[in-house]
């Protein structure tokens, strides 16, 4: 039995992976698969990969459910040495600031968990609202080494 060989990653930073899906529920799973692939390539832990999948999927779900008149969702993943920066952007009716603000959870109700989960699972979360040109969410996850 010789020494097993394992693969050393040879990632350079500042790569950009972009994905555009129709703004429909059936395509969120594809975004989830892609982000899982990117994150595992970057050697994120299994827990962090799951966090990223859920955060990106929640962002897409909000575009689908709330951004009326948007027909597609643009997801971009910027790969940097120590972090992954993901933006999720629609071109629908922009959200309002109040609904996106960090908040404490009150009584459990059927809605209202998406933004809370995104803020809980990612290290840095920023929303930009462009009236008439949609909502743009930028979220960062640091690579723990």
């Amino acid at each position, binding site marked *: 039995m010789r020494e097993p060989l394992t693969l050393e990653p040879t990632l350079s930073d500042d790569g950009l992976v972009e994905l555009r899906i129709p703004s429909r529920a059936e395509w969120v799973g594809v975004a989830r698969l892609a982000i899982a692939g990117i994150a595992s390539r970057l050697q994120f832990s299994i827990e962090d990969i799951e966090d990223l*999948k859920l955060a990106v999927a929640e962002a897409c779900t909000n575009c689908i459910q709330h951004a009326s008149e948007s027909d597609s969702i643009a997801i971009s993943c910027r790969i940097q040495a120590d972090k992954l920066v993901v933006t999720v952007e629609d071109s629908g009716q922009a959200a309002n600031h109040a609904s996106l603000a960090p908040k404490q959870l009150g009584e*459990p109700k059927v809605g209202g968990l998406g933004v809370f989960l995104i803020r809980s699972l990612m290290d840095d979360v920023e929303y930009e609202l462009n009236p008439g040109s949609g909502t743009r969410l930028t979220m960062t996850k640091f690579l723990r080494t």
Partner: protein
Amino acid sequence: MDIKVNVRDHDGQRPCSIVDLNGEIDVYTSPKVKEAIMGLIDSGHYALVINLENVRYIDSTGLGVLIGGLKRVREHSGAVNLVCTNPQIKKIFDITGLVKIFGIYESEAAACENL
């Protein structure tokens, strides 16, 4: 990326319906889960065990369906217990505070007994 839903009757101390979910619960698949759970409740089943052991992923729409089911059975003094062994999914119930409103168990037997 899909979900399978199966419903079984369970005869225990307190008879209940067990809902087996297998797959991923997201914005695409949760309407199917909702239909199954609400259908069950509307046909008079108010003691539910929802088995998430084979659920690999759940998002906020999935959580919404579970919360909606719980609210509905409570109108009839019913109860919902969950079976959940996946640490990633448990974490979501922790973060959202839903551990405090659902009975969450490591085995189906425990979930049925404690209903």
